[in-house]
């Protein structure tokens, strides 16, 4: 069984360490906040200018001056801080943010990422994605392993215009966890019931399989 979006988020949450400052992108990455393990305290950064992002507000308590980078109404947690957008990207550029989680359309086996533009379609813009991928120390990508046509999104080279080069460290897809190494995608874990052969078949880039590959476990 391939993972649900919630399970992808839950698996990524397992990478969080106590004290991390974390930037979560739009989509599946946002869901990671719902699965922060007990005993682990992380501070969520929103690149429009907030450290200490909390959950969505209760109905009637929405504040139009308080939104996240996806323009959603949010709340703050105790100890939060506001700042301007230059400082926000300053802390990203200076490597102060420990982990960045974002989505991708394609990732290459060298860690290049494409997630902002499809030629021929309306281009909405890169937002903060290029700044994040160019500077973040640790980037985990949450993505589907294949596109709706069944074609691999883990490629030898990205076909779409790049967002950044040689920056992705790890991928959690709906069927596997992989690390980017100089030799290509290294398979670390597989989704429950998904075979190594299926992952091989769905990975177009170089794939390294060493020894037995454990299944992911979910509570």
């Amino acid at each position, binding site marked *: 069984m391939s993972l649900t979006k919630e399970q992808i988020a839950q698996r990524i949450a397992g990478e969080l360490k106590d004290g991390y400052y974390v930037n979560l992108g739009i989509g599946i990455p946002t869901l990671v906040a719902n699965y922060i393990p007990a005993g682990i305290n992380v501070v969520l950064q*929103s*690149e*429009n*200018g*907030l450290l200490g992002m909390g*959950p*969505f*507000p*209760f*109905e009637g*308590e*929405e*504040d*139009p*001056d*308080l*939104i*996240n980078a*996806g*323009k*959603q*109404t*949010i709340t*703050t947690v105790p100890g939060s801080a*506001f*700042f*301007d*957008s*230059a400082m*926000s*990207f*300053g802390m*990203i*550029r200076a490597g102060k943010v420990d982990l960045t989680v974002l989505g991708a359309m394609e990732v290459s086996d060298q860690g*290049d990422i494409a997630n902002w533009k499809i030629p021929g379609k*309306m*281009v*909405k*813009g*890169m*937002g*903060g*994605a*290029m*700044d994040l991928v*160019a*500077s973040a120390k640790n980037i985990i990508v949450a993505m589907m392993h294949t596109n709706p046509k069944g074609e691999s999104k883990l490629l030898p080279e990205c076909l779409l*215009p*790049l*967002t*950044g*080069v*040689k920056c992705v460290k790890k991928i959690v897809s709906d069927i596997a966890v992989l690390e980017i190494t100089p030799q290509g995608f290294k398979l670390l874990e597989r989704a429950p019931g998904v075979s190594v052969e299926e992952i091989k078949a769905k990975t177009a880039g170089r794939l390294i399989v060493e020894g037995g590959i454990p299944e992911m476990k979910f509570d």
Partner: protein
Amino acid sequence: MNKVVSNADEAIRDIADGAVLMLGGFGLCGIPENCITALVKKGVKQLTCISNNAGVDDFGIGLMLQHKQVKKMISSYVGENAEFERQLLGGELEVELIPQGTLATRCMAAGYGMPAIYTPAGVGTEVAAGKETRNFNGKDYLLEYAFDADFAIVKAWKGDTDGNLIYKETARNFNPLMAMAGKITIAEVEELVPAGKLDPNLIHTPGIYVHRIFQGMNYEKRIEQRTIRKKV
């Protein structure tokens, strides 16, 4: 020294066709609603707008797009706007998309009197095309120039008659950066108080950067994505 003007119409009185404007805000959060309305009323055209986003169809900079007042948008993200897409695909509108941090830092550079900055954002992508690249400590960076804007138009929470400004929550975003960067900076505020009434320890934008200030009115503060959770 009198920086106080009576309203948005007076604040934008000398913005002419072809001007280069910076407009604060992220999405619809912290945008100068009063001045946008006044610009639409004045009908100035051929504007270049530097702003992170382009509003939505019927609010924010979207209103200026509706009236075909914008020649060029310089932004990081321009989704959520069908009229924008129509004008862009029809060749009526130019757009320059740049990374959000680069946008913020090019504003900052202008306000700090620096001609350019180096950033790694966009290295190895189409954003790097034609730009000077330099390697520092083993990593490549792009040279990006400070913006040069005729007017910066910002929105603050509180301001005083000397032009000192305080922003609220994430409505701060690009506002203080742009306030520093305009040749002429116009600030609209939710609450205008006499100089001396704001705590100097808490000022975000010192008044030296602000040329005109006025008490704004009728703020709609539209929410773009209303997300809530249920009480259990």
